[in-house]
């Protein structure tokens, strides 16, 4: 008898059907992953039967032999407390800020009807999930722990009452690549040791591959395809499945067709950046220490590292969009001055594209004005008709129809907004694009299409790219070289093939291992 079996599940929110005829089964010790883009209904399918979402579930959801559909809220609540554990996406906000870890763990422990745990019990529980200094952690407030530590604490709390089923909704999406692997391995070991059944929800196929036994692909609330994970990944049957698998970049993909590179374009030498600490302390926070990079015409360099490694800070310092304490930036040999002394031509050389597409467009401006803004300041020689012509041209280049020019950012989807941002970056004819996690906030399929666009632009415009990313597989797709950063320093640099095949620094090795999963 399976732990949890769902059949013919429908979920309605305010009368609208968001999940239709979903079915899957989870056995003890097994991991089933629901995969799909945002809006596919994957979260609703998991949460609604347990009464944790505003949606109303109908159909059948059997927990052991108990039918969940139609249960009263309080009975569901007791069931949740006793037999099911939940782990959610954002460790930063999933813990109550004003209660210590120990108090919250103790609360979770007693839900199963067990008496209050002793301090020793709790320390053991925290050790089991790999949390360091468990004795201290019990008395700390959540904001003192890092993201990875909080997620471990949350997992400890989710299994404290010895549930049969653990439901994890995007447990690793907010974490770094290397942490992701560690958390997934932790979940794997818990399955093995306790016979825990695991129901995973994720938008990232790569994250669950290698850990899930069964995959269920959802789109628009319906099951597109489901079956054993390795078979599905190797030979997807549905068109959607094939798209999804193809769009997920993997390290094992064949090397891409990269354009030829030319003369040396940009050289950043010995860049240092530091920030003042808030409060009384005088010593500054070192963000980038003695970093040097070079970039050639038409070359794409990936700047890779965990969060806090300084990659964005370094890139902005190079592009003159952020502070710089010391160091030089040379463009074709000549040193670039401070931003205010730069000529218009200089300013148009490097243009940025940011991570969050909607935040990078002024909500009060129309698309045409947004794209034309660089022209107004960097090409004042152009009259209005010529300007409008360029705007239209560049809109075409990013595959957006003409009538988009009159829209406002709120009328655009994430992918469309990012294309507008790219169009804005292109309109002043830059020679180098700075892409700061430009695809990380997009759904897999949408991100794939944006990467296709960037690839095309690379070839057509002979653009140099400085691509900041934490995902090595994405780096491999577009970039000639990779530079790895950690704690403000560039610890390893080389051609993409070389770094991926034979990394020398332990941090790089960890990143490769994480992306390989």
């Amino acid at each position, binding site marked *: 008898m399976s732990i949890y079996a769902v059949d013919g599940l429908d979920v309605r929110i305010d009368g609208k059907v968001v999940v239709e005829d979903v079915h899957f089964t989870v056995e003890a010790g097994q991991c089933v992953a629901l995969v799909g883009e945002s809006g596919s209904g994957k979260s609703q399918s998991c949460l609604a039967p*347990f009464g*944790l979402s505003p949606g109303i579930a109908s159909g059948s959801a059997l927990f052991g032999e108990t039918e969940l559909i139609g249960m009263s809220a*309080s009975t569901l*609540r*007791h*069931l*949740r*407390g*006793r037999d099911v554990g*939940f782990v*959610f996406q*954002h460790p930063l*906000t*999933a*813990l*109550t*800020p*004003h*209660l210590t870890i120990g108090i919250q763990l103790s*609360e*979770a422990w007693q*839900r199963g009807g067990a008496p209050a745990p002793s301090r020793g019990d709790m320390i053991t529980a925290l050790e089991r999930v790999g949390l360091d200094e468990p004795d201290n952690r019990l008395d700390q*407030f959540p*904001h003192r722990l890092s993201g990875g530590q909080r997620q471990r604490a*949350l997992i400890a*709390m989710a299994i404290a009452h010895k549930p049969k089923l653990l439901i994890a909704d995007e447990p690793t999406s907010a974490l770094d690549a290397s942490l992701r692997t560690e958390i997934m391995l932790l979940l794997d070991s818990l399955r093995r040791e306790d016979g825990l059944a695991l129901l995973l929800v994720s938008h990232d196929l790569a994250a669950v591959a290698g850990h899930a036994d069964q995959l269920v692909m959802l789109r628009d609330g319906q099951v597109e395809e489901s079956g054993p994970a390795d078979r599905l990944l190797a030979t997807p049957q549905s068109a959607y499945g094939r798209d999804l698998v193809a769009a997920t970049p993997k390290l094992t993909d064949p090397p891409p067709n990269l354009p030829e590179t030319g003369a040396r374009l940009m050289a950043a030498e010995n860049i240092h950046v530091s920030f003042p600490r808030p*409060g*009384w302390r005088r010593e500054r926070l070192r963000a980038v220490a003695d970093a040097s990079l070079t970039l050639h015409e038409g070359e794409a360099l990936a700047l890779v590292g965990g969060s806090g490694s300084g990659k964005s800070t370094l890139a902005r310092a190079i592009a003159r969009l952020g502070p710089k304490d010391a160091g030089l930036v040379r463009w074709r040999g000549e040193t670039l001055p401070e931003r205010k002394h730069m000529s218009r031509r200089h300013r148009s050389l490097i243009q940025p594209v940011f991570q969050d597409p909607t935040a990078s467009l002024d909500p009060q401006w129309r698309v045409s004005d947004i794209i034309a803004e660089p022209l107004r300041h960097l090409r004042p020689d152009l009259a209005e008709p010529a300007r409008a012509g360029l705007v239209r041209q560049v809109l075409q280049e990013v595959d957006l129809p003409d009538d988009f020019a009159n829209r406002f950012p709120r009328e655009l989807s994430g992918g469309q907004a990012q294309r507008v941002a790219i169009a804005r970056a292109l309109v002043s004819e830059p020679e180098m694009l700075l892409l700061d996690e430009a695809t990380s906030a997009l759904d897999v399929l949408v991100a794939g299409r944006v990467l296709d666009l960037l690839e095309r632009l690379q070839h057509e415009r002979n653009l140099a790219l400085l691509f900041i990313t934490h995902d090595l597989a994405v780096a491999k797709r577009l970039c000639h070289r990779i530079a790895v950063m950690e704690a403000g320093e560039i610890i390893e640099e080389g051609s993409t093939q070389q770094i991926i095949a034979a990394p020398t620094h332990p941090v790089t090795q960890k990143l490769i291992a994480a992306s390989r999963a």
Partner: protein
Amino acid sequence: MRALLLRRLLTAIPTLLGVVILSFVLMRLAPGGPFDGERALDEDTRAALDAAYGLDLPLGEQIILYIGRILSGDFGPSLVYQDFTVSELIAQGLPNSLTIGGLALLLACTLGIGGGVWAAVRAGRWQDEAIMGTATLLTALPVFVTGPLFVLMFALGLGWLPVSGWEAGSPSHLILPVVALALPFAGAIAKLTRAGLARALNEDHVRTARARGLAERQVIARHALRPALVPVASYLGPAAAGLLTGAVIVETVFALPGLGRYFVQGALNRDYPLVLGVVTLYAGLIILFNLVADILYGWLDPRMRAE
């Protein structure tokens, strides 16, 4: 946390000093002094009075003298209530004002937080709309409208409660003024509480608590209430200032012997020492209250305790 409090105290001192000096200078600049009253005085008497009250010294010296005297608790004699020193007036009036203000604050918090929690729990339903509508109405009722209105309705109309005055130990005299003073703040606190709790109930950590199988009441009490009350704690500083101001009206309308009423009389009659004393005292009280609010804030949200 300690660093924050220390910093607050340090900024408090220049603020207080600034208030004292500002008020002092203003009073001295005013045309006419306390003795330009009904009768014209002859030169000698005038000079003697000025000397007695120190009004003939240069401004800077007067300020320094004054500050020195304040620090030893001497605010000088009242120029209008001539049998009393300002300190004595303060000792008489302050407890009354504090009683009224304190009771009003207690009532406002009880009604406001209670109403706000209930509305948030029934969010979207008629109880929510009703309570919030009432709360908005309450915030729009200035004390000087509700005060006379209450007297009209409950004292003159129904004869339940006394019209005005104060008898030590007689609670019935306090009911109308305290309620009138408390109502607008109850409304504001109710709105803040409801907004705070409604937001807190949508937070991720509340979802975790619900997922854990806790009863809704426990979820609210343990996990949602404290973050929800953070905006209320921030509001307590301005609320204190507002209560002191409102107390002035209430004391006038209900003829209560509080410090606010003395202040207004003093201001209208140019009783410098009294006015200066009250302004300084009230500034100090408000600063103290802001400090208490900060401590409360730190207890509600441990992230604030970090230096």
